[in-house]
């Protein structure tokens, strides 16, 4: 069933894009389909807003999946070994940190995005605006995707930690080191995102 939906989605959009492209190509207007034209003509606010949205959205997805994985394991393991529940909240906190990275980046990016009322016709100004929009999009996408996978990773490791802790309580501290490495990945994304934004 889910493959059907996936095929439906991919098929629909492929067909739509192919149809549009063939329409232009076969009426002799292939030149009108230009990625450069699309990038130049679309509003820079599209890119900036999409970047901010993806930033917080994707990082929260990562954090959510991580917490879901870890939480389920802690709850399950806690039935037979209730001692694990307090210690293993650290895994959940690591996952949450990932969401906070995304949130902070989104707030910083929103601060740099402001709606200008006047239409800018100067080429240099226009170029700077486009650059700012693309940087915002890139930074948002960067932080979002990095935090997404970081959250997934931390969640998986945390769940393993909870279960092994329930079995043997001396294992937990060692496994925590693995989680720290997993969390560092999220930090990388945050650093790159913030560094990109500093160029605007």
């Amino acid at each position, binding site marked *: *069933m*889910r493959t059907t*939906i*996936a095929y439906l*989605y991919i098929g629909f*959009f492929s067909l*739509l894009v192919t149809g*549009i492209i063939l*329409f232009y190509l076969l*009426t*002799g*207007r292939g*030149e*009108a389909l230009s990625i450069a034209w*699309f990038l130049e*003509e*679309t*509003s820079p606010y*599209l890119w900036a807003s*999409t970047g901010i949205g*993806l930033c917080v*959205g994707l990082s929260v997805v990562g954090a959510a999946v991580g917490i879901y994985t870890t939480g389920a394991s802690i709850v399950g393991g806690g*039935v037979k070994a*209730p001692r694990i529940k307090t210690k293993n909240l650290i895994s959940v906190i690591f996952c949450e940190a990932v969401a906070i990275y995304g949130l902070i980046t989104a707030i910083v990016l929103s601060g740099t995005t402001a709606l200008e009322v006047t239409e800018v016709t100067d080429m240099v100004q226009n170029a700077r605006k486009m650059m700012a929009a693309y940087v915002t999009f890139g930074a948002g996408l960067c932080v979002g995707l990095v935090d997404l996978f970081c959250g997934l990773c931390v969640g998986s490791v945390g769940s393993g930690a909870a279960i092994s802790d329930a079995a043997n309580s001396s294992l937990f501290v060692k496994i925590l080191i693995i989680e720290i490495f997993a969390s560092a990945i999220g930090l990388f994304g945050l650093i790159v995102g913030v560094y990109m934004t500093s160029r605007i």
Partner: protein
Amino acid sequence: MAGGRMCFDIFFCCLVVIFGGSCGAEFVPVLVWESNKPTDVQISSPALKKYSTDDFADFFINKLSAFGKKPLVVVFTEENLSVEDFSWQDLAENSVFPHLESVIATAANVDFIPSVSNPLKALQRLEKLGYQWQTVRDLETMNVPEHGGVVMVLEMENAKVDEDRPDFLRRHDCLISSVYSRLVSQADDVVAVYTGRYSSWIEPENEPVLHRVRRLLVEPAPNATVMLMNTSSILIYASDKPQVTESDIKKILTLLPDTVKRKESATYQSVRAKFSTNSTDQIILEFFFFNSTSSPGYWSLENVTYYINSPNHTNKMVLTPESGIVAPVMFSYHCSSKTVFKAVNISLTFQNFQAQPYMEKTKAFDDAYNCELFFTPPIWSGLFVTSILAFIMMWGLAMIMDIRTMDQYDDPKGKTITISVSE
């Protein structure tokens, strides 16, 4: 199984179409005449029957067998020929084949068969009877064979571009009669065949094709409101008279047709025309079309220069278009909403504007690049964002479908679990 069945159906349909196409054979008229009467026996053919290839082959071979020794057969073939060509008359009641008529008057055993299917294929059977097949390519170097038994095939060339059909056939008529008289002077027995490969269309038009072009370029009547500027490489059109608004004074411009002039340089082409208004002012507009150096293959209408000659002063202003007018070379630009050219305090408005420079022939506009795009940038952005959201939705749906209830240890008939609360 169903797919195999459908494949067979498609294959069958294709076969039918192919065979049907080949069966719809062309029927062309054939005119056969001889230089000498071989015997007193005349072989005549019924006039209205449709001859198949075999029938015609039999008829022709019978004709040739009446000769003592093999005659010289000359075949004049056109690409298109039909019965209507033979019966066509112009206003003075002359036919298209005057020379051929005089030849036939002195020839023997003239046979005209109005519809034969593929006569050339029938004539090719003469090769088996010992006739030598010779295709004549060049008339000057044509050598008349001394003895008979040769089939000379003369394929007459196609019409020239501006020639209409009666002139074309008259030219061929002269050719046929000259070749035939040459052959008759040098060979004893000549059998001539005049036919075509395919049937031609009926009734050629008496007027030249240019008439249609002339209608397109008809200058608008003085009270028509269409503005059309036509020079050798630029065409500009607007469905209404242009309107100039200069410091709140509106003027409607009427084009003076004889004043349209063209100028060209390495970087631009321009067209200039005089317009009259309801006052005594005379306005000259010059449209500058630049071939873009930044994006080669595109032309752009950069500005319109506006000269006004009123009795007390002459003024020149450069008006630029509000939205860029750019299109590739070989395409025109069209805008069904107002096209506005602006400068300080003055604006020039066209309705339904269409323009194209760098044309080879200004018969008609090429395909237009519209100012209203079908897929505007907002539409593309919307599609982009919608695809992202739709992807998220699909992912969410997939995840929800993955939820499984934990009912491995459920036993509706068993004891319910009790968990003692420990402190």
